[in-house]
């Protein structure tokens, strides 16, 4: 077969260019650390990587949600524990008052309960790190409990804030003051304590009437403690669910990361070997072109 001189040079140039392009591709892969630099490098892989990246982003959203929710739940848990302790103190005052104490003791008890009332009010109006009230439902900037004579005056609402912890699950992360303090019921601790203080200070109230007052206070405060404990149980369950969800999402996150790594990343060892092989083949071609290019009958004329 005849060989056209110009065409053979042209073919050599094409071959050199294509080897260089191959080399460049591997170099780019090594430089970016990614096997898929443009979608056409691996269309199926590129689309899959986008899907996995999307799941990964969602998973890290949920993880962030859970972390934030845990802070809220832990803070509420601490506040509830303090509230329970205050209520238990109030209850022991009521228990102590059962022995028909003298006027001085009754006054001391009343004063003590007055402090407890203030403590309770303080806890009930706790704020979080952003200055939002913890027990006002969704009315974060409204003081939920105001001191008024008689019953507590709840200014919050019934709303529980929820948070998404997975594609399909939202869980509530707080409790309203109404549910923690049984607002409006006979067991509202503000109402019970306030009434008991009045009763303790009422010197005319003695004998059976006083016994009844003590027993009402005891029942009310015991129920109030029960209500708080009940909420604490729910918070415990919530906290457990958040822990479980966090573990699940952490597993998902690492699984998605591994998957992305697998789909997108360059096997550096393989790429390095490929680079070497391509360099070698380019060099060989360059040498061939250089040496065959020198061959010409005209050199011998």
């Amino acid at each position: 077969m005849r060989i056209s001189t110009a065409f053979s040079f042209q073919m050599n140039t094409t071959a050199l260019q294509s080897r260089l392009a191959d080399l460049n591709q591997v170099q780019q892969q090594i430089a970016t650390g990614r096997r898929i630099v443009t979608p056409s490098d691996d269309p199926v892989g590129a689309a899959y990587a986008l899907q996995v990246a999307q799941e990964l982003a969602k998973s890290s959203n949920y993880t962030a949600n859970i972390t934030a929710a845990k802070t809220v739940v832990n803070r509420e848990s601490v506040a509830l524990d303090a509230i329970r302790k205050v209520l238990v103190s109030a209850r022991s005052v009521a228990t102590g008052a059962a022995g028909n104490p003298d006027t001085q003791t009754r006054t001391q008890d009343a004063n003590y309960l007055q402090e407890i009332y203030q403590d309770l009010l303080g806890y009930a109006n706790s704020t979080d790190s952003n200055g939002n009230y913890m027990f006002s439902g969704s009315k974060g900037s409204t003081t939920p409990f105001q001191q008024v004579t008689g019953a507590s005056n709840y200014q919050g609402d019934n709303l529980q804030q929820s948070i998404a912890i997975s594609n399909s699950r939202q869980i509530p992360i707080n409790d309203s003051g109404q549910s923690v303090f049984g607002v409006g019921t006979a067991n509202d601790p503000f109402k019970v304590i306030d009434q008991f203080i009045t009763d303790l200070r009422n010197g005319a109230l003695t004998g059976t009437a006083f016994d009844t007052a003590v027993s009402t206070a005891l029942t009310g405060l015991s129920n109030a403690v029960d209500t708080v404990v009940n909420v604490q149980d729910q918070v415990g369950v919530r906290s457990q669910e958040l822990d479980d969800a966090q573990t699940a999402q952490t597993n998902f996150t690492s699984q998605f990361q591994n998957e992305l790594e697998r789909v997108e990343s360059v096997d550096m060892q393989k790429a390095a070997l490929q680079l070497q092989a391509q360099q070698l083949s380019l060099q060989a071609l360059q040498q061939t072109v250089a040496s065959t290019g020198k061959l010409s009958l005209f050199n011998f004329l």
Partner: protein
Amino acid sequence: MSTLSIGLTALQAAQMGLDTVGHNIANVNTIGFRRQQLVLATNDPVPSGNSFIGQGVNVATISRSYNDFLERQVSQNESQFSYFDQYLQGLQQINNVMGDRTVGFSAAIQKFFKSWNDLAGNPSSVPTRQAALGAANAVADNINGLGNYLESLQGGINSQITGLVSKINSLASGIAGMNQRISAIVSSGLSPNDLLDQRDQMASDLNKLAGTTVIKDPTSGNFNIFMASGYQLVGEGSAHAISANSSPYDPTRTEVFDASGSLQLSVNSSIGGQLGAALDFRSNVLDLTQNSLGRIAMALSQSVNDQHQLGQDLNGAAGGVFFNSMTSLPQAFASSKNTSAAVVTAAVVDASQLTTSDYSLSFSAGVYTLNRLSDGQSWSNANVATLATTAAQGFSLSISAAPNAGDTFLIRPTSAATTNMGVAISDPSKIAVAAPVSASTSAANTGTAQITQPTVNTSNQPPLNANLTSTVTFTFTGAAAFDVVGAGTGNPVGVVYTSGGNITYNGWTLQISGTPAAGDVFTIGPNTGGTLDNRNALAIAALQNDKTMISGNNTLESAYTTLVAYIGNTADETSINQKAQKNLLDQAQQAQQSVSGVNLDEEAANLIHYQQSYQASAQIIKTANTLFDTLLSLGG
């Protein structure tokens, strides 16, 4: 005394040989040059007695090394290769910008949804709200950035078409001129090799640009050249120009027409070569990419706006539109050939029904026909608005006046959305994170029934139900029924209670479950001061998982993934085709070049060969001269 004249013919033949070799060597790098060869013939012999005496040599012709079959193969592969090569160049421009998932649309939309999750966690925080606006603006910038880039590619295609058309016209008229010159020479029985080479090369260049077919006139040898559609670019000695002009629908879009501009040639992949590739790339990839991206933008904007308007902002006001409304963005172009002045208006009604196709709307015999260009699906109706409703393609249609029969319109529902994405609010407190209504349980209830917080029905789009936030009270008359009191409810009594069943009034829905007691009261009313309420943020964050947003079965991100996969696959496939065509072209060229190409070693050998012939011929003349001298000296 014929020795001298024989020597002279030999000398002349050798000289011609050297000239031919020289010409070959000189044109070793000339594109389209075909090796020439000296064809020699013996002169007619002279009878002498009982034999013939040879009279030397003459040059019969200088032939061109040309193989019709191989040339045709090269030409076929050339137009195919040019097509794929050009197509690939276009694709790579899109493929490259969609590459990086860490900075593209995908990353932006993920951050957007993350910001709504953050809002749900921190409903009243102004910095969180500010960050959410930032993330929304980033999505808009990303879409507009990509949209503007695609628009610039459209501009590039327009100038490419104009440039290619002008090159095609200049080649066509060049070939027509060549036809005239060559046929004049051929008719005199000669073969103008170099002119033939030049015309072949022009035809080959034209073929690369427009994928043409050459039909050679058997007698004159003239080239008649046709485009794939049958349009004749060159006929004998005259060229028929084509023109690049605005589409009759869209003045910003360049199409290819015949010389008079009345017949559009760029329809349905009817053009090959680079021009065909530019046109096909535009309609198969670029338009589709713009439409897909536009559809994503429209679906995102509508879904978020729909939900946002059901919410309540930090000031307690109803949520407004979050993204700029895209309802009026669908484009409807009237053909410049229409005989009426009727103007069609298209508007988005349901973004989740939009497709990535464009549509043609035609009117004849009192009936409108809407044709989906991607697959030819069509709908007809005498009323244009009813037609759009029946077709249910996500947009509505209206017309300013009755059109005339034969009038046509082009509807591009989604394309313009790619450059018009914007966030409508700039005040962070205007983000509607909360819901406008909330439910409360009376503290005095004695039953165990629980009420869920009401959700505003998605069907309750602005104008919102006038009684949405009116106070409504449910009072249970027992464990099985309740009375309802409140504006907008009609105050029904004895409503049957089903635990967990939906209860809907005034545009909201809630459930009560458990066992209520007689006298239990639940109240639904406006959400005032609910700065920590995050219900609407949760609903918008959940749109990330909404599989109904795009054509009823895709999330936003999966629609984008589909687009990236399409671009990647098409680029990959085209690259494979381009490489395969390159190989075929190389093979065809190699075969053609093995016949027609110049080999310098061969020419060097021929050079020596003719040099020796020349020397030998000169020796003949010298010998004749010596003989003559001998004769003369005899006389002396």
